[in-house]
């Protein structure tokens, strides 16, 4: 069970993780994009951290919506509307909840993925964040349906996200800025897929404790 305090804690840890990986994500984006992914997300999540005290007693739905709106209004670029929409859509279906069970977590990711797809019009295999998020979600669902613990399920989800990131190295980008590189995008991992993977790492780590 994850209560709203835990959600706040996880969000804070995501912000930390992104901050630590600011340069790494930026360098990945420099190779096939415009070199700002880490800078953008870090700016956004730092703004989120500043907002957290104002929502510390709120329900999880409100928390996620606030995170989403903050990301939308501070990140910019492609990843801002996408991550922002993902959090906002997830928040919309968690309205009023003060804690989450396994099935809530699946719902969150289903909504997040739908939001990203509607906003960005991309599908899996186009070398985007979806190539990490979708397999991670599928692993999570599979494990939870099998009866694995949340801890194990998140660990499998992280693995799937990592594999997804590896997979992005092998394909041509057909969405986002990297698509302008054509063949030249092969061999590089997608920055957005990488930041998504990092979020799953935080989720896993937070449920290990």
């Amino acid at each position, binding site marked *: 069970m994850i209560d709203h305090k835990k959600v706040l804690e996880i969000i804070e840890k995501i912000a930390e993780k992104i901050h630590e990986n600011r340069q790494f994500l*930026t360098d990945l984006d*420099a*190779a*096939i*994009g*415009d*070199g*700002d992914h880490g*800078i*953008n997300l870090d*700016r956004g999540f730092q703004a989120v951290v500043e907002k957290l005290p104002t929502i510390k007693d709120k329900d999880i739905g409100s928390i996620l919506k606030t995170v989403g709106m903050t990301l*939308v*209004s*501070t*990140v*910019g*670029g*492609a*990843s*801002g*509307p*996408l991550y922002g929409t993902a959090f906002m859509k997830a928040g919309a279906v968690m309205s009023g909840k003060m804690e989450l069970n396994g099935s809530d977590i699946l719902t969150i990711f289903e909504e997040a993925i739908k939001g990203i797809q509607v*906003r*960005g019009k991309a599908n899996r295999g186009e070398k985007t964040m979806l190539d990490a998020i979708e397999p991670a979600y599928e692993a999570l669902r599979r494990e939870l349906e099998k009866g694995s613990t949340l801890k194990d399920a998140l660990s499998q989800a992280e693995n799937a996200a990592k594999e997804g990131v590896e997979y992005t190295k092998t394909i041509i980008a*057909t*969405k*986002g*800025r990297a*698509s*302008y*590189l*054509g063949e*030249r995008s092969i061999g590089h991992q997608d920055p957005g897929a990488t930041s998504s993977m990092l979020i799953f790492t935080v989720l896993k780590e937070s449920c290990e404790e």
Partner: protein
Amino acid sequence: MKKLINKPENVEKEMLEGIVKAHGEYVKKLPGFNVLVRAKKKENKVALVSGGGSGHEPAHGGFVGEGMLDGAVAGAVFTSPTPDQVFEAIKAVDGGQGVLLIIKNYTGDVMNFEMAAEMAEMEGIKVEKVIVNDDVAVEGSLYTTGRRGVAGTIFVHKIAGALAEKGATLEEVKAVAEKVIANVRTMGMALTPCTVPAAGKPGFELSEHEMEMGIGIHGEPGTHREALVEADKIVDHMMTKILGDMDLKAKDEVAVMVNGFGGTPLMELYIVNNHVYDVLNEKGIKIYRTFVGNYMTSIEMAGCSVTVLKLDEETKELLDAKANTIAFRV
């Protein structure tokens, strides 16, 4: 990184304030937002809003004013502005006749401007959008993001802006913007990369004898790398790409823009124009007007793009109409 800046996180703000302090007769800044609008709002006309990441100066704030834009939104360097910023611009410039968003085709720009349009429509503001995709370096395809929007965008600002200034409807202004988009093509190349202040180091590296072809305007690598050759050969290559994607015959009339990316001196841009002219001239294509300068830049990148716009009677007249902005005057 060698730059005349203070803190990297303040470049956008200080730059916009510096613009307003220099050109208060042209533009003002919306307090609390990185948005420049005309110093004197003109009511009762279709309003034009454009923008994108910062780092393209004089785009886009330099094109706000009579006969061109009504508002320009500036994101962080090379990062699309967020929807709330764009929304604020839309609200500020709307004069009751609706607002046209002129968006360069980048996933981020398209999504952020679309979200802003949704917000504006919820407030009852009529919003239309056009997406500029003039960059022939990128092969367009149904299955990809499509072509980028680059320097050709300025012709969209100019021509749609001129029609809006005359009092045309939102549909008419959108239609002429679409016409420009259908008839404009650009190709770019770089001699050096550029450095985003917050990143502190260049986006890519190039040796002394290499150039990057098919470059966009965000310091990203181009479509491929080649050995640096003389200017005329580079122009030949770019013109082949551009003209190969246009349907131009002898006696057709065009406008030309030789656009510097920020670090290339006018001397070189004029040397480029010297050959662009000859290539078109030899094919019997008539150059109606030429613009040479830094219009759509990538911070301090050295390199240039060439834009060709096929004209007709309507667009010729609108290109000739008065424009009085900081960076573009006709």
